[in-house]
């Protein structure tokens, strides 16, 4: 399999993993602090609210797609390339996506954190 296909696979992993994280983060903000809900309404209500959220379920679907994209891409290229590249790029993509879609205030401190962690993960997973 060509390296272009492998990088296409890595792009698919990054996009689907980022979409999953963003959707789940949005869903959790809409549901509210799970600790507060648990204390006032109990575990059953927490579970009901989470699994009845369409955004959460869509996020779960994207996470599953990211997992299967990872499995397929691993069959095209070495884990030493796919692992670090996808993990590091997902960190950077999440910072951009959180800024754009979740309207989070990603200041220089968070950008630096994303860059450092992405570099560290790339070295660690290699």
């Amino acid at each position, binding site marked *: 399999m060509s390296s272009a296909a492998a990088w296409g696979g890595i792009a698919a992993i990054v996009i689907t993993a980022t979409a999953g*994280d*963003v959707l*789940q*983060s949005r869903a*959790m*903000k809409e*549901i*509210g*602090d*799970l*600790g507060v809900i648990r204390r006032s309404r109990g575990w059953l209500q927490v579970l009901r609210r*989470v699994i009845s959220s369409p955004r959460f379920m869509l996020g779960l679907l994207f996470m599953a797609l990211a997992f299967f994209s990872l499995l397929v891409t691993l069959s095209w290229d070495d884990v030493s390339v796919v692992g670090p590249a996808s993990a590091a790029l997902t*960190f950077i993509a*999440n*910072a951009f996506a*959180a*800024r754009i879609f*979740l*309207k*989070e*205030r*990603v*200041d220089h*401190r*968070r950008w*630096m*954190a*994303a*860059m*450092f*962690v992405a*570099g*560290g*993960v*790339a*070295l*660690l*997973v*290699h």
Partner: protein
Amino acid sequence: MTVRKYLILLAVVVFGSSGNVCLGRGMRDFGPVNSSNWTRLLIALLNPWVLVGIGLLLLFFCSYLSALSWADLTYVLPATAFGYVLTALLASRLLHENVTVAHWLGIALITAGVGFVATGPSLTAPVESCAATKHPGAHSRELVLTKNARSDA
């Protein structure tokens, strides 16, 4: 940040890394899995290490969702990245995997990254609410978020 919230972040780190290590330990008993012997994956589900690993990763997912319910995604991801470090250390100690110089450099970078966000607020006001709070009738949730971000800082 309350003690409860720090404990939830700690749970994300500990459950995630220990779950991965247990899965890694369990899958060692089965060797490489490919398309010709994929049914091994089903048998692997009966392995005690794999079962414990799945249980720990479920706890990881619950604590991760809980953290996302009160903190920004750009806070939770770097703040819990120390899990990668813990996984490397546990794999080195328990599974006797080799930790190279590159690994230690990676650990140093992740630790620095965690340090960058750990000192900041866990939840910030959405960008647009900065403008909204200057106008009467701004959305109440945005005002609450602004207040929380200030108290966290």
